[in-house]
């Protein structure tokens, strides 16, 4: 069916193991450098740069239609820990590794700016979360995916509970309960049942056939599909999204990591990976699973935007915006047309860069002014023009206005929904765009043109430290660049959809 399925194109490459080991070793290195903060941050940044270079080194082979793989452990017949780099994994691996680099510098500025406690633990867990995320991106089978998915859940717990106050513990508790319960309750049986049916858990090399045998009863397939959709609760699909706003108690770099890079993207990546590779387009079409899924996540898109409107806390508003935006990705894939899948997958990238900008901005505002609520931010744009400028750009991306990255997504999704002849989905996308404008535009508008609250003086507030400002500007710039030149990332998406 596709060129990749020939075995000549599957190449063993031990650098895959290196890519997974770097964040792990980096994390161990960070732990040993408890009393040397500078050295500790040096290790983190070295690891992030190394990881990025390694991931970049996969690009030429993948673009030549090759699939890299490396088997680490062979556990049982058909059950192994195996890594793979193909177009699909590169989308997420590139996002995670590049944003880790930026996030390391940003969190250095943030944590030191606020003189937070337990910075070593923070940095170590940060690296471990990336270890899990890269593992998810590079997994070759459902077991490896599940393994790293669970690693991300466990390793981000300390990050959410970082402040160690009642609020932090409550948020972290909700977080871990939602994520482990859904994983055990839905994913584990799905994983085992697929193993029983198929005899292995390896993903195929195309998005059409899926891995289930053709004589599987349709109710079993549908049950497995529902299990997979609900089991990866990191994807933030309602009604299992509550952990995400709860996790907002964490320090802002964590929110940025959780809500732009590691956790939520792990969720949608896993969801879309299973939709396309475990079930496959043919099966999903045959059982008509796509359109109901699209409508199911449409509810999340609209509902989360409506809730976001009502939030005054900037991070909460961003959190609900994330819930809404993640469902775009699933929506695109669920429509099962070439363009809609393109739009869904490219949104993994577009949303990551734009949303991390927004969270970085929220953190910068907090460090500079200790303000959390949008209502207190009017007029701040004049004191912090770069920060709020970046916020405005990233908001445009969320809304889907050209020339910022989000526009590319919207374009493909709109085309895809027309291809699929789903007028309802088209209306959902339009409504969601209007809602996005409604909750993002006032923030930027008030910051630049609003009046300061009575009694506050204009002076004394300035931009956050450079170590925070530079990552913000980089992330915002990248959002614009991938909006103008979407082709670089589109190549990988095209490698998936063919």
């Amino acid at each position, binding site marked *: 069916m596709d060129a990749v399925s020939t075995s000549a194109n599957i190449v063993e490459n031990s650098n895959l193991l290196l890519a997974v080991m770097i964040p792990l070793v980096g994390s161990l290195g960070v732990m040993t450098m408890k009393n040397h903060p500078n050295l500790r941050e040096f290790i983190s940044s070295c690891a992030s740069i190394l990881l990025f270079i390694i991931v970049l080194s996969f690009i030429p082979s993948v673009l030549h239609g090759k699939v890299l793989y490396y088997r680490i452990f062979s556990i*049982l017949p058909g059950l192994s820990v195996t890594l793979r780099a193909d177009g699909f994994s590169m989308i997420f691996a590139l996002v995670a590794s590049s944003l880790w680099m930026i996030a390391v510098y940003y969190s250095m500025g943030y944590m030191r700016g606020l003189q937070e406690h337990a910075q070593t633990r923070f940095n170590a867990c940060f690296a471990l979360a990336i270890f899990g995320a890269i593992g998810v991106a590079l997994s070759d089978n459902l077991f490896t995916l599940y393994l790293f998915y669970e690693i991300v859940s466990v390793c981000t717990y300390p990050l959410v*509970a970082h402040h160690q106050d009642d609020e932090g513990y409550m948020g972290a508790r909700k977080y871990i309960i939602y994520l*482990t319960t859904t994983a*055990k*309750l839905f994913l*584990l049986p799905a994983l085992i*049942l697929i193993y029983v049916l198929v005899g292995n858990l390896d993903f195929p090399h195309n998005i059409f056939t899926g891995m289930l045998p053709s004589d599987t009863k349709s109710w079993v397939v549908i049950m497995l599909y529902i299990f997979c959709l609900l089991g990866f609760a990191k994807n933030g699909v309602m009604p299992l999204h509550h952990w995400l706003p709860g996790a907002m108690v964490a320090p802002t770099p964590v929110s940025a990591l959780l809500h732009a890079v590691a956790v939520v993207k792990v969720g949608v990546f896993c969801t879309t990976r299973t939709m396309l590779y475990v079930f496959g387009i043919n099966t999903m079409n045959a059982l008509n699973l796509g359109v109901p899924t699209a409508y199911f996540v449409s509810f999340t898109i609209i509902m989360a935007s409506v809730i976001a409107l009502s939030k005054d806390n900037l991070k909460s508003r961003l959190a609900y915006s994330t819930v809404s935006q993640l469902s775009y990705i699933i929506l695109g894939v669920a429509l099962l047309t070439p363009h809609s899948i393109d739009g869904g997958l490219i949104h993994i990238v577009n949303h990551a860069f734009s949303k991390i900008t927004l969270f970085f901005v929220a953190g910068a505002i907090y460090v500079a002014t200790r303000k959390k609520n949008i209502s207190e931010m009017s007029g701040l744009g004049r004191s912090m023009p770069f920060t709020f400028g970046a916020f405005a750009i990233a908001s445009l991306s969320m809304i889907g206005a050209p020339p910022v990255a989000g526009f590319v997504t919207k374009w493909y999704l709109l085309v895809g929904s027309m291809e699929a002849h789903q007028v309802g989905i088209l209306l959902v996308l339009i409504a969601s765009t209007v809602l996005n404008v409604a909750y993002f535009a006032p923030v930027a508008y008030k910051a630049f043109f609003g009046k300061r609250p009575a009694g506050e003086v204009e002076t004394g507030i300035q931009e956050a430290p450079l170590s925070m400002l530079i990552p913000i500007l980089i992330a915002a710039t990248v959002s614009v660049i991938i909006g103008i030149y979407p082709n670089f990332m589109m190549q990988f998406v095209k490698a998936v959809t063919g």
Partner: protein
Amino acid sequence: MDCLILKEGFPLLSFLIFFPLAGAVVLFFFSGERFARWWTLCITTVEAIASLPLITGFDTTTVKFQFAEMHRWIPQWHINYILGVDGISILLVLLSTLIMPFCVLASWRYIKTRVTQFMICLLIMQVSMVGLFVALDFMLFWVFWEFMLIPMYLLIAVWGGPRKEYASVKFFIYTMAGSVFLLVAIIALYLKNGSFFIPDMMWKNYSTTFQMLVFLAFFLAFAIKVPMFPFHTWLPAAHVEAPTAGSVILASVLLKMGTYGMLRFCLPITPEATFTLAPYILWLSIAGIMYGGFTALAQHDMKKLVAYSSVGHMGFVTLGIFILNSRGIEGAIMQMINHGVTTGALFLCVGMIYERTHSRELRLATGVGKYMPWYVTFLAFFSLSSFGFPGTNSFIGEFLVLAGTFTVSKPLALAAIPGTVLAAAYMLRMLQKIIWGGTDNPDQSYLNDLGFREIITLAPFLFFVFWIGLGPQPFIDMMHTSVVNLLQQLGEWQQHASVAALILQ
């Protein structure tokens, strides 16, 4: 007797049984606490090393009993001294020999009174544990089965906690009650066969009623030992009061005797009853999994929490055994080993906290993560292993058991799934409390992190957690032939029985 491969030369199995006994005898003459500790450590270490040739010499391709030894014992009653290991028992023998040095290390400071006697008890315990798993004569098996009660009773009753009398007597009465039924069944089988040789009793055409009665007698004895819900009530009491080493032996080895008995006796001796009663036992296992999970979730005593988690884990073992397919049974044997490793390690961990705080209360052990980073690292890995985190040993066991269950019945497998969620819930709850606690943690700054001896005690367990979790194939290879043979015989027997039923009709 053609099912035995007799061992020429050095009688390894007899050595493994009697060497600790010799060690114990020496301790009768030389007391002195320091000597007793080091001597027991030496004996158990030599024993552990001496058991390694079992692995190297084990032939994974044959279904026969290997390293076999046969001597006449009481000829007029046809009782013989016959030993041998096959794929079902070898891992359990190794588990019992390898775990003992760490039990000694765990008691190094924990036991302060009557050290010599304690060590003698441990050594005698080892005699009966190894003996039970290698015995091929039913009378010999029963002797070891009963023999073990005495040192275990003493371990709890002498070195136990505040309610040691209650716990030890309860343990004794429960197990004794089961043993009586076991003895009755053994004698009934002897009267039918005229021999106590276990393989001779298998795959015989006993009448249906006879099979049902024997099965129920077996089942009662073994279910108490496992312990299966609702026969489990002695377990939390015994665990809570026992000293650390006692808990470790109890969890790691003693509980396995029940499930070993089911595999070794119930399936081959009473196949018809097994087929008839398996569905009920499967649902009883599910009940045990759920019950263990819910009860563990409600515990404030760390030892009780781990004890109830055992009820849940052993539910998976019985589920795997009575699902009667190779994935299920292999998963069940793996799960026995895993439970031995993980729960043993968790009891060691709880013991280490107890040595420091003199309490098993979870709320008094909150927030120690900051002061004992090494300790909580170990604890974290063992807890993850306990609830079947992928990549650790328990995942393999549960995965195989559930895969076997899914092959037979989807509703049954789906009914067991909430048990895994509960396992995650109670383990993560405990882990969260111990590492982090809340905002009102007691002052833990006086705590010292693990010492060298304690790290040495825990490290091998961690090694096995990951070895079995990431490369279980060598372990499965050891048992595979025997398990396949067992199932094949079971299948043949079933075919045979249905043909016979047809003819009768």
